[in-house]
């Protein structure tokens, strides 16, 4: 079976077909489940398949159709969930051995909202351990493979979710994006991946990595499908005090074009390190918008070159505190035979965490430790202000910013896994949005040597409507 589907449906078409009886939600769910069964042994995108739940949810949609009720926004749509989002009673591993047997007693708000909108949850997707990685090679359950070339990485950390959509095993998938973990795998797998504004979607039920950076967002085959999912999940949740009370627009105005739109092109994103094939695809995408009436503005984000250093200080510091909770007491793995509490903590964590997670906990502990706090952590927080100010100034001159999502197309399995710093540098174009808290979306924009290239659209805080309109214009 070809792992890239020849034909794709959209949420709107699938819902319409279910509503008018051309197909049933059960048939759609069964098709997704049989595709997972056929492809997952090769791609390793799913860690758990929730077939019984999926079929029950699909049957509920079909019952609605029979009862003549109006369909909800996601009725009958097969959705995959990254394995760092909790669903009551469904194993949630975060790609880690330390949570191998964890069964959450509650469900993430984002997942709950999808289910209330009729979504059919088909399973939990593989990811880098605790969402730490850019290639999915850090999963304790083996790497995910890119359906465009199975010897290549799908990107990370939400690689399983990107692959689930790219290979047609699900129509939508949820990921989390702390430094690019939705947008970069979307780019490498040729699908749409959206990181909303910080606070747009509740993080309740997302296992925390970097709490000031993490956002949940959708993967989809089109900008329109991504906007439907965003609409369903967005909005305040009293269980996450950082979720925004800002009004949620319907994100449905995708077709009104880009005439007169001012597009910022930051020179810093097109400098050394960008592969030639990626540059060509992104420039042709920008040209497409110009032909449709958008104007381009050269802008500068002068502190961009400090973003990777700043990000890996902030993110590892937050990770070292967040992951302190995995101590073998309340949940997760506990080492056998320790006589004293501290020994039990040390051995459980050392046996339960993989090398990249340990490395980041160590870096975070170091930059927060007495004597180094000012030189690293405090310094990084101040540089973060400079990076956010760069965007504030830029968005006076332009409405959206267009950049490549990733410096290159999908790299080979093993190519960067021995060199952590090189791996960190592959996030160079995505991490600034997390530091500043602004939204970003990656859209497929052609291929280079047979591999997909992603174009990134960035917008000001809560600027998803204009961001999606520009993204849609790249797509058509």
């Amino acid at each position, binding site marked *: 079976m070809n792992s890239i589907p020849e034909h794709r449906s959209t949420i709107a078409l699938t819902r319409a077909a279910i509503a008018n009886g051309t197909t049933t939600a059960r048939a759609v769910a069964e098709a997704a489940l049989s595709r997972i069964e056929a492809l997952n042994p090769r791609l390793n995108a799913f860690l758990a398949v929730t077939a019984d739940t999926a079929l029950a949810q699909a049957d509920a949609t079909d019952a609605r159709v029979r009862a003549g009720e109006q369909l909800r926004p996601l009725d009958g749509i097969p959705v995959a969930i990254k394995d760092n989002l909790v669903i009551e009673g469904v194993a949630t591993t975060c790609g880690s051995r330390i949570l191998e047997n964890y069964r959450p007693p509650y469900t993430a708000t984002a997942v709950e909202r999808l289910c209330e909108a009729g979504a059919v949850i088909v399973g939990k997707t593989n990811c880098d351990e605790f969402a730490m990685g850019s290639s999915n090679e850090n999963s304790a359950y083996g790497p995910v493979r890119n359906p465009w070339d199975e010897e290549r990485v799908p990107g990370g950390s939400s690689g399983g979710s990107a692959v689930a959509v790219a290979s047609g095993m699900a129509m939508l998938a949820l990921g989390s994006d702390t430094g690019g973990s939705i947008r970069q795998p979307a780019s490498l797998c040729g699908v749409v991946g959206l990181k909303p504004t910080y606070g747009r979607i509740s993080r309740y039920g997302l296992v925390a990595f970097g709490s000031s950076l993490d956002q949940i967002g959708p993967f989809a085959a089109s900008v329109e499908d991504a906007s439907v999912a965003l609409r369903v999940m967005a909005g305040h949740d009293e269980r996450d005090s950082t979720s925004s009370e800002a009004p949620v627009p319907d994100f449905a105005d995708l077709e009104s074009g880009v005439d007169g739109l001012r597009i910022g092109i930051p020179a810093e994103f097109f400098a050394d390190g960008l592969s030639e094939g990626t540059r060509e695809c992104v420039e042709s995408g920008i040209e497409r918008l110009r032909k449709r009436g958008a104007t381009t503005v050269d802008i500068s984000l002068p502190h961009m070159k400090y973003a990777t250093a700043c990000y890996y200080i902030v993110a590892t510091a937050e990770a070292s505190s967040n992951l302190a909770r995995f101590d073998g007491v309340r949940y997760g*793995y506990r080492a056998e035979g320790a006589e*004293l509490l501290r020994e039990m903590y040390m051995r459980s964590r*050392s046996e339960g965490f993989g090398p990249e997670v*340990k*490395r980041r906990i*160590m870096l975070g502990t170091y930059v927060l430790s007495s004597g180094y706090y000012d030189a690293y952590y405090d310094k*990084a927080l101040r540089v973060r202000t400079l990076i956010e100010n760069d965007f504030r100034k830029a968005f006076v001159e332009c409405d959206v910013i267009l950049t490549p999502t990733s410096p290159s197309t999908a790299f080979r399995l093993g190519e960067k896994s021995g060199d952590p710093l090189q791996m960190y540098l592959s996030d160079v174009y995505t991490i600034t949005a997390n530091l500043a*808290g602004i939204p970003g979306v990656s859209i497929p924009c052609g291929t280079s040597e047979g591999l997909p290239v992603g174009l990134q659209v960035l917008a000001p805080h*809560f600027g998803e409507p204009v961001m999606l309109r520009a993204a849609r214009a790249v797509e058509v």
Partner: protein
Amino acid sequence: MSISREVVLKTAALAHLELPAEDADRFAAQMSEILAYMDQLAELDTAGVPPMSHSTLAEHVERTWRADIVKPSLGSALATANAPEGFGGYFKVPSVITRAPREREES
């Protein structure tokens, strides 16, 4: 910044991690390289710049407090259901301190 094996081991202890000897050497080399990269932040003069610990939500949104009322919670049975070792709705852990050697002999 280059860091020694000793600093790596001290940091590991602070983070409640045990590192085998070969890991400590590897981590010292990798962390030195990563920290050297991070040292480029020192080029920037940030004296008058305020630190930003969070995306500035306050500028965009008026925060409101929820009503201070008691709501149902998980309850101890569910909250402890994932514990590697539990005891009647409690978490069970190994001893926090060891007994003195003489007491041990007497018991």
